[in-house]
């Protein structure tokens, strides 16, 4: 059900069934977002470790290691950098 996500060097317990953005909100981490639909790129952040999967393909141009939190999920421990 859950996995550990390291956000800016702090560990949090994330729910597998929620998007990364929803998880960040659960922990009141004040994440950036706008469209919540994968096309604006406001929630873009860096994936330092681990893998994410997309519920829908992101429409934003992502550079290496960049992910969108609004439409991605993970099942195993990951590490991301939001700032």
């Amino acid at each position: 059900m859950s996995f550990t996500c390291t956000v800016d060097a702090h560990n949090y317990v994330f729910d597998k069934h929620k998007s990364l953005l929803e998880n960040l909100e659960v922990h009141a981490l004040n994440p950036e977002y706008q469209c919540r639909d994968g096309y604006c790129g406001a929630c873009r952040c860096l994936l330092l470790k681990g893998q994410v999967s997309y519920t829908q393909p992101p429409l934003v141009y992502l550079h290496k290691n960049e992910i969108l939190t609004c439409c991605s999920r993970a099942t195993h421990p990951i590490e991301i950098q939001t700032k």
Partner: protein
Amino acid sequence: MAYSTFSKIPNDAMKEPMFFGNSVNVARYDQQKFEIFEKLIEKQLSFFWRPEEIDVSQDRIDFMNLPSHEQHIFISNLKYQTLLDSIQGRSPNIAFLPIVSLPELETWIETWSFSETIHSRSYTHILRNLFTDPSEVFEDIVTNEEIQKRASDIAHYYDVLIHAVQFMQLHGLEQSNVKYINLKGEEEPLSLRSIKKKLYLCICSVNALESIRFYVSFACSFAFAERDLLEGNAKIIKLIARDEALHLNSTQQILNIWADGKDDPEMAEIAIECFAQGRDIFLKAASQEKEWAAYLFKDGSMIGLNEQILCQYVEYISNQRMKAIGYEAPFDIKNNPIPWITHWLVSDNVQVAPQETEISSYLVGQIDSKVDSEKLSHFEL
């Protein structure tokens, strides 16, 4: 290199660059060099809306009750938005369609520009409701000095590109009989590379327009609605903002595709060569928007928004947008100074009835493509 509406060259569109290859001939979308543009078209079509759907009648009462300095903020902001969309409703077509080489990108440009014309029509919808005769407001857009300053800068990069491309397509570049006289009236040696540079800078300027300038104006519109004023206007701007997020995405795509060398190799070189010039375009847009903020609030601020906060937002949004296309964030600000704007920019709470719109997922769900032939076994003819 004359433009042809239907090039007879049997080219492979998958091997063409985005711009300055062969003119597009067959409008086919079964194969795409950059699938993203097809996806953007689908998204944009699913967003379709009409200004008349939004009731703005309460806005007139709200507007009449505003103090005069707030009326100035509201109307000036609306004039500026009208200017931006007047430019965007035609310029991508005129500037980019004559030089585009991919069918999916060509159609995206048309779809993009079309949606800007809806935005323009919605400003008329808003203004017609506020004033019995909105002529004065429209007429001021071409004479107002503060708006003029911005207009000339935004239109400049488009005009320079259009002018050079028209010369190239009329006279060709492999001749020396006719000299190119640029918009300043000076003789300028023209090469394909120099025109490509003009295209690069133009896309940078369009991106700055849609990613920074528009958002500053959105902030002003939403600030009124945060106080439960002029909400009809805010509902329209919310729909416009949703479209703009898509448009700025497309120019970010183009810039990133070039910079990463996934398209024309010459454009990758130009992206490096014009890196500093590109940054200057963004910084200039940011500083112009700050000047605009000073003009908006010259007679006084409004609850929730003043010159200082709006300038901080300009810096914040510039940081975000510049990072998205590979620049360092130029300003120190880290957090959004107007966090309430997010609530207005979220598009998943834009109210729509699925059966009245064209949400692609909803329509796709209507068709059950897996039909077991067993189920038809009791049918007899």
